[in-house]
């Protein structure tokens, strides 16, 4: 499937992998792809995103925050056993300093495509087919992210982006 990707789309996916790895995330999803797209200044897609009010820094914060909620879930889960994770963490940090317990939560090694990420790439292909293009470019990736309704879409919504308007904009840009 990647042979039908344009060079820039391949670069976007590659960049998304590096982003997920740098952030220490285990899985690569449409949110990392969105961040990669937002950070590419010369692309028509990043222009569309900018004009929709999307700032790369806000996207980065939102992506990081999404993956941090795992900690909150762990706290609640341990509370059901009578374990106060915050207290355990505090005790450990007394001896070893701040963030001592955060180590392995940072995944090392190459992030793997999440099921949602795979779905997003599949939808990008379908968008290209639907629009009768013979390649999959950055714009199809972004359309796939919007259509997947997953992590990337949720990040955009949380930033107040009108997803439907953005989709229309991307489709008209293409036609031009």
């Amino acid at each position, binding site marked *: 499937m990647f042979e039908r990707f344009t060079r820039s789309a391949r670069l976007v996916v590659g960049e998304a992998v590096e982003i997920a790895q740098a952030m220490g995330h285990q899985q690569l999803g449409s949110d990392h792809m969105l961040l990669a797209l937002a950070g590419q200044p010369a692309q028509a897609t990043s222009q569309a995103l900018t004009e929709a009010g999307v700032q790369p820094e806000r996207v980065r914060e939102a992506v990081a925050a999404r993956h941090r909620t795992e900690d909150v879930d*762990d706290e609640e889960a*341990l*509370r*059901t*056993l009578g374990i106060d*994770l915050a207290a355990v963490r505090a005790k450990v940090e007394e001896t070893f300093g701040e963030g001592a*317990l955060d180590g392995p939560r940072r995944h090392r090694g190459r992030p793997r495509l999440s099921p949602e990420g795979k779905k997003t790439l599949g939808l990008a292909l379908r968008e290209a087919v639907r629009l009768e293009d013979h390649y999959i470019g950055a714009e199809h990736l972004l359309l796939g992210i919007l259509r997947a309704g997953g992590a990337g879409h949720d990040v955009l919504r949380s930033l107040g982006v009108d997803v439907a308007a953005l989709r229309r904009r991307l489709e008209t840009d293409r036609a031009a």
Partner: protein
Amino acid sequence: MTDAKTLTAAASADDPRTGLRAALALRRLADSLERLQVLNARRKGWSWQEIAEALEVSRQAVHKKYAKEL
């Protein structure tokens, strides 16, 4: 702990979803602590063998898991 929380905890005690989620959280915590103390032990000059014995695993297992971090 409020009464509401105690009730909720009791009600979900035999729910596999809750229980498995707690097991996962505990496993992640155990992994964090293990890593922290393995690195601590190495900094204090413990051998891989001594660390392995304390964790009741093989020397190879502990070495494979942590050597690359040091």
